[in-house]
């Protein structure tokens, strides 16, 4: 699906594409590092190159004018490779000024997405959280009880959706929020937003932090 300007806006090939297969991305550090480092060298956490920068900005701004700037909110973009995937994080200028040896092999504290197989920008879980803070585009707002169930990996039924972006169509990836508009995860639209049937299937949700790990001291 494309918007009138012809820029990918919604669906499987743009910023809202969910990270369904973390191992499917491109390998390596990107154009700037491939020649300098031996193949087995750990990845360098670095600024995006010109093409990567443009891909991310275009992808976000195609959804809503000025969205890229709001998404960054004064922070910097970082790119680093991990498990064969080029990941994208939000970071600070000071991090990017650290000696290269400290940035090599490091992961970003706030990852927000990755580059997909077609060099497209894909949001991940925390990217969706950042998204929900700045726009309601491509979003579905669930009622309180449905929000709780979504965090346990349950589907959203049409009757439990308080509001949704009218541009969303079956097959589109969407950000799911609670009644306050706080991001809870990513889903895929599977049906109509009217009636009683299933409307959204979960893809990633914040409940994974509980399901997969003990976070506490």
């Amino acid at each position, binding site marked *: 699906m494309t918007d009138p300007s012809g820029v990918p806006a919604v669906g499987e090939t743009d910023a809202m594409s969910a990270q369904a297969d973390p191992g499917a991305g491109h390998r390596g550090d990107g154009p700037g590092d491939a020649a300098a480092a031996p193949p087995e060298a750990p990845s360098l*956490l670095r600024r995006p190159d010109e093409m990567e920068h443009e891909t991310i900005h275009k992808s976000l701004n195609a959804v809503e004018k000025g969205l890229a700037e709001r998404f960054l909110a004064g*922070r910097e973009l970082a790119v680093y490779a991990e498990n064969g995937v080029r990941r994208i*994080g*939000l*970071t*600070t200028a*000071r*991090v990017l*000024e*650290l*000696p290269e*040896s*400290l*940035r090599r*092999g*490091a*992961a*970003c*504290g*706030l*990852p927000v997405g990755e580059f997909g197989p077609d060099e497209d920008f894909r949001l991940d*879980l*925390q990217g969706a*959280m950042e998204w929900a803070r700045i726009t309601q585009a491509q979003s579905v707002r669930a009622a309180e009880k449905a*929000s*709780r169930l979504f*965090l346990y990996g349950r589907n959203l039924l049409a009757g439990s959706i308080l509001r949704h972006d009218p541009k969303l169509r079956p097959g589109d990836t969407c950000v799911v929020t*609670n009644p306050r508009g*706080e991001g*809870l995860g990513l889903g895929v639209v599977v049906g109509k937003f009217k009636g009683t049937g299933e409307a959204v299937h979960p893809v990633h949700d*914040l*409940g994974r*932090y*509980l399901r*997969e*790990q*003990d*976070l*506490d*001291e």
Partner: protein
Amino acid sequence: MVDIARPPAGPQVRAWATKHGFSEAFAARLVAVSRAAGADTPLFLDGLLRRPPRYLRVNPLRASPEEVRKRLIARGFETSRVDLDEHVLRIGHAPMSPGATQEHLLGMTTLQDLASASAPLALQARPGEVVADLAAAPGVKSLHIAGDMQNLGALVCVERDAARARALRFNLERGGAACAIIRTEDAAQLPEKGWADRVLLDAPCTGEGTLPKDRKRRRMRGEEIAELCAVQERLLDAADRVLRPGGTLVYATCTFGPEENEVQVARLLRRGYSMQRLPFDRCTGVLLGRGITDWPGHELPAELAHARRFFPGIHPSLGFFVAALRKEDA
């Protein structure tokens, strides 16, 4: 190899140890520590048998304490503030696990013991600085530091254990710690020297301070202390290497034994470090224990008294040791 003190156990100590399932040698050490730190020994021993209250800390990168408190009250929680840290809430009645709320998953809160908050408080990280957290998992203190830095600057979080590094990543992600990077390696392998303005080493330790919630630790052996002391020495050397001259090092453990605490800090004092006063001296109105300066088998400088100790039963927390040091200018 560090000398491990083995104070004798008198009849009263032996009786207490037998009654509560502690080894006699360990009980005698606990009594000796409390006396050396000027703590009320009966209160302390009683505190080792009972769980302290639960706490959560509000992540200022995601929400304010007032907002979180209102939201938790609406969910049926009872919470109250504590004087040590304005972002910490003591949990009273809890209708569900505080780690399973939406607020927790949204990164607004972390669960930690009250005393744990003292290490980042002692570090006093500021926006724009370069800070290293050398044994960072599970990342609750790292997130506290990122909050103090207002997400400005660079926070290098280091964790050797890959499984624990995963918890570190999850906590930093949830909390929105954009200023942080994660290195999964032994801190002793860190590249470069003198790049950090501040270093936190909350060192791996025997964990005696967690006795109130972990009965298995009641039969601690001296050999375990010696093993951990070797790890602590190695990590402190790493901390010394990455800290810039004039920078601040905070050393903390959740254990009582002076061999793992004051004796380790004394090594750095002999290298020209100096003790710094901590920005707190009490917890919930009760004065904290002072650092120990008299312990069998070790010569400990008087300035170690500036370190602080949390004692279960005396303070409403698990046991904890924290010291702040300044590295000599070049």
